[in-house]
């Protein structure tokens, strides 16, 4: 098992009451497996993905990566884990506005210590795969939503992580582009045995993955 969620509970306290978004979510993902997460809007998909990637802390329960609890890694350990093993695509892309598309895609490699030149070369290839090489030098605010999404996807796998979390990676794309993005992600999943957790509303896309988890009323089925 590469990733295990044990009885995850996530609550948000609002001024009026405590909202329980996730209520005892447990499941595991094995290496190289691709899992789709679906569920209605507001059901807690993004929240779950954040917990799994260690970007947020569960109220109760724990997340294990290859048997080690994320909570035990410590702040620095968690950072190291993320830069070495994790790729993440945010629902709203979250590119660094002061960096070009290429620089954004190359960022994980640079954080790992790769020289700027090598990082740029690798990121350039990734952007080309996604049909983005002509926009490599543009800043995020000069790109369309779909283009930004493709940069975010390139950024999620340039450093060959062991697991990729993608929050609706095809949400803003037309069918053809969506297909190329899905292909790229699945190819990475197959060739490098990278585990893939993908949130989507699209049943066709969900059906192409190994397994589908559906969130409803705070728990998975």
């Amino acid at each position, binding site marked *: 098992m590469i990733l295990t969620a044990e009885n995850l509970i996530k609550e948000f306290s609002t001024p009026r009451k405590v909202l329980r978004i996730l209520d005892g979510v447990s499941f595991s993902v094995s290496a190289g497996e691709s899992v789709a997460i679906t569920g209605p809007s507001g059901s807690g998909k993004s929240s779950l993905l954040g917990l799994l990637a260690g970007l947020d802390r569960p109220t109760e329960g724990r997340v294990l990566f290859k048997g080690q609890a994320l909570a035990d890694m410590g702040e620095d350990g968690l950072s190291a884990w993320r830069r070495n093993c994790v790729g993440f695509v945010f629902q709203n892309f979250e590119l*660094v506005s002061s960096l070009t598309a290429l620089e954004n895609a190359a960022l994980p490699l640079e*954080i790992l210590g790769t020289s700027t030149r090598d990082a740029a070369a690798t990121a350039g290839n990734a952007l080309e795969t996604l049909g983005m090489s002509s926009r490599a030098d543009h800043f995020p605010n000069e790109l369309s939503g779909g283009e930004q999404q493709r940069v975010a996807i390139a950024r999620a796998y340039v450093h060959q992580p062991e697991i990729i979390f993608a929050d609706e990676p095809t949400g803003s794309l037309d069918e053809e582009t969506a297909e190329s993005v899905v292909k790229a992600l699945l190819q990475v999943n197959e060739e490098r045995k990278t585990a893939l957790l993908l949130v989507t509303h699209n049943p066709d896309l969900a059906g192409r993955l190994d397994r589908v988890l559906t969130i409803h009323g705070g728990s998975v089925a």
Partner: protein
Amino acid sequence: MAGRLPRSLFLRLYRRNFGKLLFFSSCLATGVAFLFAVGNVLDAVDRSVSERSRELLAADLEVSSNRPFTHDAQALFETLRSEGSRVIPMTSFSSMLRPNSDSGVPFLVSVKAITEEYPLYGRLTLEPPGVPLGISECYLEDTAAVQHGLTVGDRVGLGSASLRIAALIKAEPDKSMTRFSFAPRVIITRDTVARTGLVRFGSRIRQRRLIALPPSNDPASAARAAVKRIAAGLASPYVRITAFPDAEPTISRVLKRVTGFFVVVALVTLILGAIGMGASLTLFLNEQLPTVGVLRCLGLGSNAIALLYHSLCGVVGLQGAFLGSVGGWLLSGAALGILREALGMTVPVTLSFDWLTMLEALGVSAVVAIGVPFARVRALSGVAPLAVMRDKTEALPDRPGPAVILALASLAAIYGYTLLKSNSSEMARGFAIGLVVAAAGLAFLTAAAVRGVESFAKRFPGLPFALRHGLLIVGRERARSRIFLFTLSAGFGLLGALDLVRTSLSREILLGKAESVPDLFLVDIQKPQLKGVQSLTRSFSGNEPEYSPLIRARFTHINDEPIRRKPKEGLTLEERSRQRFLLREYNLTYKDKLNGSEKIIAGNFWSPGETKAQISLEKGFSERMQVGLGDRLRFDIQGRPIEAVVTSLRTIDWMSMKPNFFVVLPRAVLEPAPQNFIASFRLSSRDNMPEYQRALGRGFPNVSVIDLSKVLDQVQDVLTTLLAALKGVAWFCVGVGLLVLAGTIALDRRAHARRNALLKALGCSARSLIAIDTVSFSMIGLLTFVIGCLTALGLGRLIAHMLEISFFVDAAAVGKTLAAALLFPTIVGLLVNARAYRADVLKTLRAD
């Protein structure tokens, strides 16, 4: 589209951003508060200084004349007395004092005849203290007693009277620096004068009246008003009336500069506040872009948006005015409390809080709060909706039009306000133009610097990760970097400039205390004695004193037109006064080299060895005489006429305490004339004073020593008080500046946290995040340092020039301020963002 203000929108926006808006208001409020506190503080300083300076006159005013006071004058003094003033008579004249021993040599003294009420202010310090003065007694200045081997109980002859020395004078209040007579002091009672038989018709006697006015809230103005009244009442050119604020030019000159400096500090604080507010409001408006985009897309017109944000700025101004007035009032109270302690003030100082000041606060705040971000609001409201939506984090586009209008408007505003506060159009002009030029220069430099940083980071892709990204943040987040750089370098530049001006001013003031300033004068050295006096003095002072020849002369012709005494009937008061001025006897000197305190402002000074007869005149003297370059002056030196052309005009720094003369001629021209010498110097050790005086008394009994050290100390005392106030005020300004700048950095926290959260999601460790931030903040610090230094030097020079302070770069002092500039952004930036390094990623990203 009509600009109707969507009220609910306005209220919601106000409530959402209440904290921030309050901060903007506080930036402004500190400036406003200071502007008002400074009024009260200045008032207090002014009073405590005037309290001391009237001790230097021993009165509120002095009326003096070489002729007996007329009946009219006597009547006027009676009127003053009946109104509650104290008026006491005093007479002074010069005479020879004869020690009553065989070896005693007569020497010139300056006699002052007093009544029991003397002095009206200050103290006459005697040794032994408190000895009363009898009719056949006198007090003698201690230095003269030492020089001539006299002590208490000895008898001396003055005219036909034989007097016993009752006590020695250690300090005398009204012996001021500029009005000292070239002879040691003897004090007798007024009844003794007749016994001396010296007061006969034709003898040069100066009649004086010392006047203490009834207590008033503003003694200085009261004294000046009384001067005007007496002058009008007497209408005589022979009477000189001096009010205490004008008695000591050194103090009043310094006071004038210090006052100017205070006004500059107040304005600088206001500008710092305005910059802080402007910068943070700009950041705020940039942040508002997405909101505005949505509102525009939903159909809100650009006029409505402009109105919305202008109103918000207006509210910031109102809050600022309110906070500023209250703060200013509290601040004044605190400052006055401290000052009263520090200055040892006895005059009560009342806090003023009037509606006019409040209105002024309101006006200033509203103008600043709406005016400074005006262009930004225009840009915000005018931008195309879709562009806004896309341009999520970048700044508003710059538009040159509003910026130019803003620059012109600030020019006018600063000019008007400085004029109002300083009453000097020259200062207002200099300040306004200087600041606008500085702002334009800063805008250019910051833009260039930010671009430079980006291209540097791009040119060297091999830089370590943290360094490269730290630099990229500065270079790429252009709008924010420019706001920071501008704010910080303007802020530190202004603070540095103030520091430079303050240290220049202190240096000038403290120069009087410096080792180099002479405090002893020798007068009446005869030409044959010169060699002997020189070698004696050299052995005591350790260096070569400055000797100046002194030649008495009268002017006889200006450009061949004889100066004649015209019948005074038919002459205006002014003409009579000029006639008196022209007919006086003057001390001339000769030299071929200027001393350090003189500066040629017109024409050229001759070179050594010049034989052609020519004249260098002091500027003020030439103005009173109404002559200029090229005019020919003829004068009479003991019967021998000399004619010379004015070839240069000089200014003199009288504070240097060097012997200086209004009229100077070349050495070769005057050397043969009858002359004596004066010298100014300082002893290598004050302890040698008695020994030196005794030696001088033995060898050269006619030479008098004038000891100015006590007077100098007294003046220094007053000036040091001023300096302390100055320093306090400047430090306060620094405090305010730093707070405002720190606030501006803090405002950027959100955008900062967001970027850090993202990098963290990508696996950046907290350490790398800190490293990146350290690089970017240090880069800002470095640029601030460089640009701030340039600004400080430029503005400092300008302000010093306006206040007529000789500019001096105290590298150590200004280095301290600017070293703070170097570290400040990093320290504040890391502190403010400390929490972000540990914050949860998702929470931060969602927080938007």
